[in-house]
């Protein structure tokens, strides 16, 4: 049995991915990524820089559901505007985070519509404020709060933020670099087969199983001989997460 929540586990797993000295950010509705960044700064990456979303190095005193309002910032080193964001969006960041209504086998993200067409949709999504960090940044992470056949689909109905498109050829043809590095879902960590750029299971969370992941994924997962168990939060990680990053227990 676990003494941490699934979202806490996701935050910890993501935090371990971020390297000292890197610069990155999370967008709206991004409590898990923000927790990951703040935790990384407290553990192995004290010089991690948080920028790209109109604030530089925030110091929030608790987590909030959104990163894109002043509640969630605390004291910052500098304030920016959409003018500077325009530049960041072209140069890209070291890392960014995405979530979507649909996520597909190649890590493409859809926030626009499900079913129908863009202007005659069965279901209209919210759209995305900024679609450029996916294509311009060195890497991004996909961190959905749900893992089901409904949101993990073979091909998204609309590519809001691009992953590996239809695989290596189309990705190269589009002149792209970077792309999704990992998907850290509520059930597993998924990486991308270098040959096909399709998702496969990298590790399964302690509370789940390969069977559960396969059962809840709407596409065929690539084979990976080295599936292991996701490493749970250490005592220290959990303490820092709960005492400093998320004292109100938003992720619990």
């Amino acid at each position, binding site marked *: 049995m676990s003494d941490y929540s699934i979202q806490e586990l996701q935050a910890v797993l993501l935090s371990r991915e971020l390297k000292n000295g890197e610069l990155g950010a999370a967008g709206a509705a991004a409590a898990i990524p923000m927790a990951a960044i703040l935790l990384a700064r407290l553990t192995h990456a004290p010089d991690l820089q948080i920028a790209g979303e109109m604030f530089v190095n925030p110091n929030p005193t608790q987590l909030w559901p959104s990163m894109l*309002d*002043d509640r969630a910032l605390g004291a910052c080193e500098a*304030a920016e505007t959409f003018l500077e964001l325009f530049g960041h969006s072209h140069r890209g960041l070291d890392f960014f985070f995405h979530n979507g209504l649909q996520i597909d086998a190649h890590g493409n993200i859809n926030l626009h519509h499900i079913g129908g067409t863009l202007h005659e949709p069965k279901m209209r999504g919210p759209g995305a404020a900024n679609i450029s960090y996916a294509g311009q940044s060195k890497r991004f992470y996909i961190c959905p709060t749900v893992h089901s056949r409904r949101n993990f689909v073979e091909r998204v109905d609309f590519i809001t933020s691009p992953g590996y498109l239809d695989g290596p050829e189309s990705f190269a043809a589009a002149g792209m670099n970077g792309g999704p590095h990992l998907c850290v879902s509520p059930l597993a960590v998924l990486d991308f087969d270098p040959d096909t750029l399709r998702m496969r299971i990298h590790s399964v969370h302690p509370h789940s199983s390969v069977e559960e992941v396969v059962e809840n994924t709407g596409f065929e997962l690539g084979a990976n001989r080295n599936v292991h168990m996701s490493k749970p939060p250490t005592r220290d990680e959990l303490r820092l997460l709960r005492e400093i990053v998320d004292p109100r227990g938003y992720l619990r």
Partner: protein
Amino acid sequence: MSDGDLLAIGGLFKQGRPTALVREVIKADFKDLKVSSSPGSGFDVDLLIATGCVAETYCPAVTLEERMCPSFRHAVEEGRIRAHCVDALSVVGGYLASANGVPFQPVAAWKGSDVPKHNPLVAHITCPFTGETLFATRALRPKLALIHAQEGDVYGNLRHLSTMTYADQMIARASDFVIASVDRIVAPDDILSRPRETSVPNIYVDAIVELPYAAHPSGSFPHYSIDEAYIDAYADLAEAARKGAPEGLRMFLEQDVSGCASQRDYLSRLPDTRLPALEEEARNL
């Protein structure tokens, strides 16, 4: 502003939105408005759509973040509005071009996304220096922009006290006519004492009005925080309307928008403890 014109709304998602001014636009009964904003919008755009005065949106994201905007979703799915497929760089680039006084802004991103394929603001262009093909995004010139700042003087010099100021200055520079609401009017000497803190100079502002809690239910930091309960209550009614029960939403719109002759009327409908709690939350951040 006339029917069919482009209205731009300052702020971002649930912060710094000139909501009191938006309610006045609704009461003025315009038709077929085009609406833009900073790239992140939510409650107020949904309210405009719910009241039927919007024909087209140029809003990259329309969301309450934890949940979708029901009236937006409903109107798009029923084909009642055209939700143009735009993103941050096309809209911000459009404001920037307009503020710069040029007809377009180059954009060199968007690889792999379906958004530019459907975005009516963009076209291809070739760089005359590098020969590379990139995008141009069309100058966006709103007829009217509504902006909210925490402070301003009677001449229209605005001072944001929040950390983020979104695209407010750029939207003001890009627009034909700009109306600003502020939480409080300060003395002109106060503005003169700290010129670098003036976030939007009066030369871009045509009218300024002091209105208590003019941003409510969005937050105006550091003065008052976001009224999530109010937004949620609206969203529940709008979601019910989307699912076929429009009565609650209709009553809400009557009581909180068309039925409020003044900002005082509007505020008087809130629970007594609400505004002090929002101020308390902002103080304690």
